[in-house]
């Protein structure tokens, strides 16, 4: 049976789509964004790290393995535990990562299994996938949480490690198919919030929505440095170590900008 490499199944997630949700974090990502706040999600293999447990002032070290292979049924069993909460809140499952699209067959198996159980699904994705792979799963999730980071391909490559060509193409395909999409824009000072990038992004969004009566939902995600400790624990280089956090208030002017193109904008998830 096909298994997926999962690094966490987190219950009661309230910032990753509507209602109360369980988020399944896939491990492995082709991108390596400078601002990545789940650095443990990047490698396509399980990792060991040392965790310090503190008890009565004493330190106890434990080796921790991040990333286990799970079958669809195993994941589904954990998901189903909160079914009543989904029902009551209009919630469901969010598949996140890492980049779930990199484990296409498992992802599709999981999404289908959820659908069969009547559980709402959201896919939190960078959109980076070969068009063929992408199109094959595009009809499965009920909702896409789709990252839009940098419009300039070179800059995109510089800051995330990959070109944005397929990302923009796949997003356009979703709009064409009239899928439910929430655009998620990480606001990283000096990187994604430049006037040029914002202008290009607005133009692009406008081009996607031309002729549509639907309002595009846009979430602006302010940069935070909460992952600092994780970078150290997993011995990963944190390129934005010195960058201070943004406050929600800092994003108010940007919110207005995106609203000017008819977006339904909120700050945070």
């Amino acid at each position, binding site marked *: 049976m096909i298994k997926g490499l999962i690094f966490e199944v*987190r*219950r*009661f*997630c*309230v*910032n*990753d789509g509507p*209602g*109360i949700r369980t*988020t399944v974090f896939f491990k492995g990502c082709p991108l390596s964004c400078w601002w990545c*706040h*789940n650095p443990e999600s990047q490698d396509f293999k399980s990792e060991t790290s040392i965790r310090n*447990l*503190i*008890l*009565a002032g*004493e330190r*106890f070290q*434990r080796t921790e393995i991040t990333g286990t292979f799970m079958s669809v049924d195993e994941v589904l069993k954990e998901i189903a*535990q*909160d079914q*009543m*909460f989904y*029902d*009551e*809140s*209009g*919630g469901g499952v969010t598949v*996140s990562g890492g980049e779930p699209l990199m484990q296409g067959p498992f992802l599709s198996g999981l999404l289908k299994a959820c659908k069969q159980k009547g559980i709402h699904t959201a896919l*939190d994705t960078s959109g980076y996938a070969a068009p063929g792979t992408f199109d094959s799963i595009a009809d499965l999730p009920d909702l896409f*949480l789709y990252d839009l980071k940098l419009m300039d391909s070179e800059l995109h490559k510089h800051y995330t490690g990959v070109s944005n060509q397929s990302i923009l193409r796949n997003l356009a395909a979703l709009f064409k198919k009239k899928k439910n999409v929430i655009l*998620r824009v990480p606001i990283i000072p000096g990187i994604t919030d430049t006037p040029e990038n914002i202008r290009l992004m607005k133009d692009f969004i406008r081009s996607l929505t031309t002729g549509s009566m639907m309002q595009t939902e846009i*979430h602006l*995600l302010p940069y*935070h*440095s*909460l*992952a*600092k*400790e*994780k970078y*150290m*624990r997993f011995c990963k280089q944190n390129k934005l170590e010195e960058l201070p*956090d943004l406050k929600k208030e800092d994003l108010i002017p940007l919110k207005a900008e995106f609203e000017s193109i008819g977006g339904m904008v909120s700050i*945070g*998830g």
Partner: protein
Amino acid sequence: MTDRIKFLREQSLKAINHISTERASLVTDFYQSGADREVSIPVMRALTLRYILMHKHLCINQGELIVGERGPAPKAVSTYPEITVHSIRDLEILDSRPKVSYKVDEETKKIYREKIIPYWQGKSNRDRIMRALPSEWHDAYNAGIFTEFQEQRGPGHTVGGNKIYGEGMLDIIDNIHKSYAQLDFINDPYAYEKQEELKAMEIAANAIIMFANRYADELEALAHSSAIRHPASVIHHTKEELLDLANICRNVPAHAPATFHEALQYYWFVHLCVITEVNPWDSFNPGRLDQHLYPFYTKDLHKGTLTKEKAVELLQSFWVKFNNHPAPPKIGVTALESNTYTDFALINMGGVKPDGSDAVNELSFILLDVIEEMRLLQPSSMVQISKKSPDNFIHRALKIIKTGFGQPSCFNTDAIVQELMRQGKDVVDARNGGASGCVETGAFGTEAYILSGYFNLTKILEITLHDGFDPGTEKQIGLHTGNPDSFHSFDELMEAYSQQVNHFADIKIKGNNVIGRIFADYMPVPFLSLIIDDCIANGRDYNAGGARYNTTYIQGVGLGSVTDSLTALKYHVFDKKTIGMGGMIRALDNNFKDFEEFRAELVYNTPKYGNDEDYADDQAKAVFEIFYSAVNGKPTAVGGIHRINMLPTTSHVYFGSVTGATPDGRQSGQPLSEGISPFQGADHKGPTAVLKSAAKIDHIRTGGTLLNQKFSPGFFDGDESIRKLTSLIRTYFRMDGHHIQFNVVSADTLRDAQKHPEKYRDLIVRVAGYSDYFNDLGEDLQNEIIRRTEHQTF
């Protein structure tokens, strides 16, 4: 908030808790006069109340709209020497302890030394009880297996129903006469007892009317005296207000209330008499206040004699009265087990009407406004949420909860109704019920539901692991259930535990039945019996089983701790065999000294209750079933039935202090888990998992369970999170959860989390697409979050 309320609220907050000897002194005078020896006990108790009400100082606070204080001044707290006598040492402790102190001046000590103690020593009801209880009871009590509420307070825990809003005391006296006329001295062997009880009730009913008239006289005198010419800037009563208040006191409680204002004043007089007659444990309160007052509110509004603003001001003045009345101070161990000022008067809002339809009304919302604005410790408040309650009612409550004030708590009406009906109550009585105190289910106005004491479920495991021996008091107080080293399976251990629980539950129940009879025979409460149906019709006292329903509860404490401990034994000793039973017990007896590494495994790497994992939660269910069958259904001394509920107040701290180290990694003396909440830090899968675990025990077969949930303040931001919390509550209630309370984590708590991460494994920082535990953040970031938290709360 009007200037008047600002002033009253400030005066109440400024008043200092202190012991008043007024009541103790009057009671002593009365008993010393010998008057008590000429009449039956019920009549004597009614005359005692009358004597107090006739001679006590009348306190009228400047500007207040509801009059009446139990003591001579706000926060002047009465004592009850006929129930329990404070020693000089007790008074000194009360005076000097840093937390929850009651000031005691030299004059008070003198009166106690010269008058109260000499008369009452050896004669109080507590003395009578302690003499009557067998040594096995004392041994278990001293070991901290259970506590006893009635050793220093009267049986209480009842809540007023709707009776007083339709009947004046004169109507009630008519009913007493009717009951009197039915006495059958030929066929009824209890006719004499009934006669004396009914006589006592009539005296009590007349006493409250007399007391209200004294207030009316005093108010009129004030209105006509020159002393009330105040400068305009000072908050004071106008002459008209004083005369109005006097009129109100003439009309209620003698007659049924005619207005909103009269309804409140009537209740308040009743409240005062209930808590003056004896010191019932505890929480007497008006119950379904929005339901009781709504007809008066709409009628007065319609007539144009009341505005919404005036109603709010009256309610706020009413709120101040509760805050003026701290709980009677306790002595000895009881002060440890429940060291709070409050008497847990829990106002209920919402719920369902007698016909089962949604009861949320305009007043429910007005009361929530009052609670938000007053922010007082007392009265406490709760919302009853039924499946029919509108979401906006829950949203309104959550907007108050998120300010971090701990009120209102959320209750499941549908569960409460089922709990009461399972106990055999009529559906209308069940729908008129609610929860009082912390979380205790009751049929308001028709039930005596007496809390008898906390029961230390965790300590009993310690005793089981020592073959019935208590390492604390160094006595064999339990059964010999075998050396645990010889147990071959986890089931054998559970069987031994079950035998010990039954053994101690029997001791407790036998004690309850001694104490119950002593209260029935020696300490009747004819006044309270006026208020609770069907005491008058039955001609029987509230303390003697006169109420329509009589229930005695034992409160299980430490469910999370005992579950985790049993689970750790199952996991490490029987399943994984990482340690032998002997080794485990050695680790516990050493309080984990030289077992630190093993303790870290127990704390961090062992299945725990609260994570929606059956491996651990199965033990919670098993313990619940053992405790339930040991108690539920056993008769009480007054014709009632014993039942269980699961709540600790603050006894989990006391019980922890007398319980040695436990297999869950808890060190000796540390607090136990509270209510049905997981042990602090044991849950790490978020609130949905906690709720699922907590719902695995059968709440419907309890009389209340208590579940606390912590949230960081940032979580409550925005309407969306309020909606999600609403869904969380609704789902828990769909699973028959009885109660949930949300606590907003403060900056201080987060600081504590930095020091004791093991207690805060459940603190999760939630940001879109990311989630991590507070414990896993570096110190700088933790400090940053603490700074932000301080910013958001006030």
